[in-house]
């Protein structure tokens, strides 16, 4: 038998029709829907008098626009219309939805795994690029546009071109205070934000195996920031233990049958990859992004890079533009950068483990006087409740943080949580693009413990020495 990669196995098991030109009709097992990228797709179905192919494969939730404070009123009429449109579309097409008042509501990429809606071996799509998150469960999961949302709703399939196989092997073990977020930022810094374009990345190696499922989701979540539509991690005992007893996971005989099949969801020995990157986990330091793309990262003990040292003129110009936007001077130590706001949340870092790690850093301390706002936004209502049962909300509130309801919040600022022009934020989110967290806002991507430590110090600090 030909040795196959995990991606090859997932692809092969979902081919409905091979078109013989590198493209195929691929079956989609699960479709997650949110309010921003779905209205035009439902409208398309209506215009063409089409119905969803398979209702039970869909799950909808509002997350991008939802307020994280009082939810009884939504001031922005355009946001409100978009949220109401999702409610209306789900009701009229019969699609399951977790409404804002449901404790299971949350960020679409947090609730899929949390509910066991996302399972190993599945193909999973959503009109959101961070769908790569679900690849941590050895599922082929990737973001799609609205035309594809409509295509999946109508046909349960997508016309796709197979990607190439890329392996990112992370050997050794992470040092104390270094997290999965630092690991993936270091990978993006190394291969660049287009390094994984047209590839599916499988993450493997001892450092990956040692990660919890939450941490694996952080790694796969940011595959797209390296250009790869999908990231993958093989099934192991941690995957199976995580899924046991989830509300939508199989039970009884089906569970036994499922886990027997899931254990084969790994790349065969000797399987060929088009590209292999090896990284030593021991060499990864806590990371801080300095520019306006996730590849613009340095270690916390480093300095803001000097564009003058870059030989490629287009890159040099890009670095200059980034520094101008970020209001930073070359060669300034990262730990000398003062902050205005801190955001702990997003589909990258809003799971219970992220909140525990951040709370540990702030316990018994107060945020610095120059921090105007520090937000903690749990990834789902269930994460929020779990954190409250552990008393984490008190730890944050006593330190001066605001404890919010679940949603995407300041990761992209579609709701009222956003940066004002010129404000500088330590953020556990995934994108530091210009204007991402608010027009003119300046984002530095970091791990939850690094964001927590920065909130206390008022500037970046090495959490290992904090």
């Amino acid at each position, binding site marked *: 038998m030909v040795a196959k990669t995990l991606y090859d196995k997932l692809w092969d098991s979902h081919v409905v029709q091979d078109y013989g030109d590198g493209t195929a009709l691929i079956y989609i097992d699960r479709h997650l829907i949110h309010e921003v990228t779905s209205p035009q797709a439902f409208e398309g179905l209506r215009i063409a008098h089409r119905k969803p192919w398979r209702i039970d494969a869909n799950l909808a939730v509002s997350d991008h626009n939802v307020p994280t404070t009082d939810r009884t009123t939504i001031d922005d009429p355009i946001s409100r219309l*978009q949220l109401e449109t999702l409610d209306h579309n789900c009701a009229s097409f019969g699609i399951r939805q977790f409404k804002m008042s449901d404790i299971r509501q949350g960020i679409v990429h947090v609730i899929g795994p949390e509910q066991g809606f996302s399972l190993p071996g599945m193909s999973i799509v959503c009109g959101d690029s961070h769908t790569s998150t679900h690849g941590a469960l050895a599922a082929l999961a990737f973001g799609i546009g609205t035309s594809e949302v409509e295509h999946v709703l109508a046909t349960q399939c997508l016309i796709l071109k197979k990607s190439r196989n890329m392996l990112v092997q992370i050997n050794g073990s992470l040092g104390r205070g270094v997290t999965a977020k630092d690991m993936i930022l270091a990978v993006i810094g190394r291969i660049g934000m287009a390094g994984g374009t047209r590839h599916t990345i499988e993450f493997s190696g001892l450092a990956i195996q040692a990660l919890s499922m939450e941490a694996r989701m952080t790694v796969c979540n940011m595959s797209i920031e390296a250009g790869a539509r999908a990231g993958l991690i093989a099934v192991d005992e941690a995957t199976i233990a995580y899924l046991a007893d989830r509300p939508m996971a199989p039970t009884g005989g089906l569970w036994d049958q499922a886990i027997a099949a899931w254990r084969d969801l790994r790349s065969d020995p000797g399987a060929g990859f088009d590209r292999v990157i090896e990284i030593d986990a021991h060499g990864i330091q806590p990371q801080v992004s300095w520019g306006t793309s996730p590849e613009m990262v340095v270690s916390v003990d480093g300095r803001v890079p000097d564009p003058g040292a870059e030989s490629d003129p287009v890159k040099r110009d890009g670095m200059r533009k980034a520094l101008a936007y970020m209001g930073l001077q070359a060669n300034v130590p990262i730990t000398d950068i003062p902050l205005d706001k801190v955001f702990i949340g997003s589909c990258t870092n809003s799971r219970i483990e992220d909140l525990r790690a951040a709370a540990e850093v702030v316990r018994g301390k107060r945020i610095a006087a120059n921090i105007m706002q520090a937000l903690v936004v749990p990834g789902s209502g269930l994460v929020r409740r779990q954190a409250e049962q552990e008393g984490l909300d008190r730890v944050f509130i006593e330190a001066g943080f605001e404890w919010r309801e679940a949603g995407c919040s300041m990761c992209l600022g579609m709701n009222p949580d956003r940066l004002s022009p010129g404000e500088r934020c330590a953020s556990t989110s995934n994108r530091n693009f210009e204007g991402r967290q608010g027009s003119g806002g300046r984002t530095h991507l970091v791990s939850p413990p690094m964001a927590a430590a920065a909130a206390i110090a008022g500037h970046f600090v090495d959490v290992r020495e904090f």
Partner: protein
Amino acid sequence: MEAIKKLTGLVAPLDRHNVDTDAIIPKQFLKSIQRTGFGPNLFDEWRYLDQGGSAQDCAHRRLNPDFVLNQERYRGAQILLARNNFGCGSSREHAAWALLDYGIRCVIAPSFADIFFSNAHKNGLLPVILANSTIDRLFQDVAGTPGYELTVDLEAQTLVTWDEHVIEFSMDASIKRRLMEGLDDIGITLQTAELIRAYEQRRRQDAPWLFSEEICSAGATVDSLTGPNESTI
């Protein structure tokens, strides 16, 4: 979508790497439930000096004179010349809609982000990939020649310059056919509905847990509100 076969248009140069979809259409404009009307907010933060909000009339906003699309010589451009990794970031199809709504029908770049590339061709926005060296030369030629136009011939897979220089590009056959005929993907897929049903039947045998409607709908009952495995969510 509108079929595209051949197009002659003015070329505007956007000389930046990694132009992301947040730059192409910022999030405050994604609240619309329509497919149209995004053109006035294309590249909003680069294009205007003031801060843009949703549902705002852009006719009286202050334009940034330094932004390339605001320069008189590029007014009415239908072809955008770009750099590496164009369209990276979020999956928002609004980025392709905004470019089309503005009047751009073709983007030429050394590389595109995967999701944007797919969104573009599914909407009749032609993404053309050329070698870096060719792109460099085009940037020079566009800068040096006011009114610089290109003819894009999808059938022949060529760009023809004003001085009749021909540049070839490659394009997947299936994408080319869909672009040229303006085909409805869903209609085509539904012609193979029997194959999809046959696949589902096979999978139901091999992997029945993927189809456990009872389990999925059980997830929507009040019982599940307790959540699983509370200590390790």
